[in-house]
């Protein structure tokens, strides 16, 4: 029997980063309100950058997030390098890609195993899951530790990296470091296979809503750094034209800005990358996708976690390849490439675990005079709400707690990093 009246008010969704509320109001079977409220305080990172030396930007902005710190640092460095005419060396590009895989693995393992799997295995959180299925949680910890160690070997430490700088690195992994990491990555393949097998067994909710998917793209690799902005609705844009894609606006119930491109909303993240860049995935990742029944173009947002599992396979295999390349060519001490000028404007973009991240800086005489950071979760908020509006009417025959769980799982599927998304307001005192 249809539920005529439903009122859901989830304050502080659990197992996401930051604070978000789900507010749904159905009266007489009609959806009156369906909001994802973001009540977090704006964090003013762009304002913090103004007046600071360009060398500090990556260190300040990596503090936006404790999960995507390397992603923020990389986007920040690329923005600064483009502004100041710095072209990183081949070695720097290779090390950044390998470093990035470490962070992608760490974040995806955290989400797939510790934030989403408890829902699918009927556990309220990872602690009861650890008691019920210790081998699953121990596997996740082993994989996370390897990912963190990879980051530490390349950039000093994972959270808030210290060895990444404009024009290169200030620390380099030894040959023994790379050989050790390569062997541990190879040894982790059974854990990766077990992860795919786990998601073959777990049943993600069936819900479909067509939307626009956006990701960075390159013709010759599964793109995480640089490239062009590409949409499944057609069209590519240079990174510098990011504002034409993001089109930020404000809504009353959110302290994070909203984005839209060719429709009312779009999605970024692992599922978007999978849909945009499937052809460039490692063959083993394509096999994993087939095994868990994920095919492009997939329009079920709950499958974002499945796409993360596919990316775990890709990142492990590509990290092994990158170790091989670095070992074959050797890693030598390189002084960072120095800027050719001290003034300019640049935009850096990376596809971080939760989606496409943009940093844009204006630098004058070596000091940042303007900054704009557009974070993946902010880009996804309109899409999550559009999914909620489509999903709620299909759930009205269920009990309120079942509706609530379905909506919480939907929000969690996006792996939102809400604190990152509330960076935004430009305040003028007049």
């Amino acid at each position, binding site marked *: 029997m249809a539920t005529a009246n439903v009122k859901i008010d989830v304050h502080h969704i*659990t*197992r996401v*980063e930051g604070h978000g509320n789900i507010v749904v109001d159905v009266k007489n079977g009609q959806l009156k309100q369906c909001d994802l409220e973001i009540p977090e305080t704006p964090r003013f990172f762009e304002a913090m950058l103004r007046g600071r030396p360009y060398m500090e930007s990556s260190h300040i902005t990596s503090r936006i997030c*404790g*999960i995507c710190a390397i992603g923020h640092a990389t986007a920040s460095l690329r923005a600064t390098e483009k502004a100041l005419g710095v072209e990183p060396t081949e070695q720097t590009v290779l090390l950044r890609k390998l470093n990035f895989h470490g962070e992608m693995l760490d974040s995806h393992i*955290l989400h797939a195993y*510790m*934030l989403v799997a408890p829902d699918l295995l009927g556990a*309220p*959180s*990872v*602690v*009861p899951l*650890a*008691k019920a299925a*210790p081998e699953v*949680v*121990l596997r996740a*910890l*082993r994989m*996370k*530790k*390897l990912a*963190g*160690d990879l980051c*530490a*070997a390349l950039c000093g*430490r994972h*959270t808030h990296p210290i060895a990444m700088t404009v024009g290169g690195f200030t620390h380099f992994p030894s040959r023994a*470091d790379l050989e*050790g990491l390569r062997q*541990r990555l190879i040894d982790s393949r059974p854990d990766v296979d077990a992860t795919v097998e786990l998601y073959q067994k777990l049943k993600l909710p069936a819900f479909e809503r067509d939307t626009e998917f956006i990701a960075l793209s390159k013709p010759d690799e599964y793109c995480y750094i640089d490239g062009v902005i590409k949409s499944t609705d057609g069209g590519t844009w240079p990174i510098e034209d990011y504002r034409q894609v993001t089109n930020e606006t404000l809504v009353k119930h959110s302290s994070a800005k909203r984005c839209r491109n060719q429709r009312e909303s779009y999605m970024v993240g692992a599922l978007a990358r999978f849909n945009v860049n499937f052809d460039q995935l490692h063959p083993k990742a394509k096999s994993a996708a087939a095994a868990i029944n994920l095919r492009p173009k997939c329009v079920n947002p709950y499958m974002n976690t499945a796409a993360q599992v596919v990316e775990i396979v890709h990142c492990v295999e590509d990290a092994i390849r990158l170790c091989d390349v670095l070992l074959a060519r050797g890693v030598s001490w390189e002084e960072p490439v120095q800027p050719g000028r001290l003034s300019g404007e640049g935009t850096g973009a990376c596809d971080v675990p939760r989606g496409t991240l943009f940093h844009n800086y204006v630098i004058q005489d070596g000091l940042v005079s303007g900054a704009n950071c557009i974070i993946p979760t902010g880009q996804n908020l309109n899409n999550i709400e559009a999914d909620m509006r489509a999903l709620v009417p299909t759930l009205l025959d269920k009990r309120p707690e079942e509706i609530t769980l379905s909506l919480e799982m939907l929000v969690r599927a996006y792996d939102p*990093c809400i604190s990152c998304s509330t960076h935004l307001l430009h305040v003028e005192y007049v």
Partner: protein
Amino acid sequence: MGVETPSSDRAEHPGRAAPTLVLALGNTLRGDDGAGPAVLERLAACPIPDGVELIDGGLAGLETALHLQHRQRAIILDAADFGAAPGTWQRVSVDALHLAAPEGFPGLHAAGLREALLLGEALGILPPDVVLYLIQPQQTGWGEGLSHDVGACLDPLCRAVESELRGGSPPPGDEGTPRWRIS
């Protein structure tokens, strides 16, 4: 004896993990938060008995639980604000800690020592004997180096840990029912 950084994977293998672990936690770029690693550095210069591994665990995350796996004993060195005079230190058994948070398991995006111990307990991988040496900081702001009072406690604290590692009587500590809450 040298200090291992967390990059090794020895602790994940039963045959390779030393029975006793001394694990320092803290950020050496945040003033007195680096007290644990500073004690560890002094210990590394001492003649430590066989079967003891020293690890600088940096900033604790969930993976810290893996360091504790396959051990008989773990001694954790960490800065902790417990309202005492700077440089005061306290030996606390894990049994004297409130691990469960009243609001449930906290966010995984900012997991620290408490979450690692909680997870380790749930996984059944905590050593039978886990003690913490908690050091009261004076300041944990930006910058390297310890305050005078915290620096002054390093030698006696190092001697206490070294004595405990050699089987001597540990200093008086809190072994009782949970009275300490860490976060």
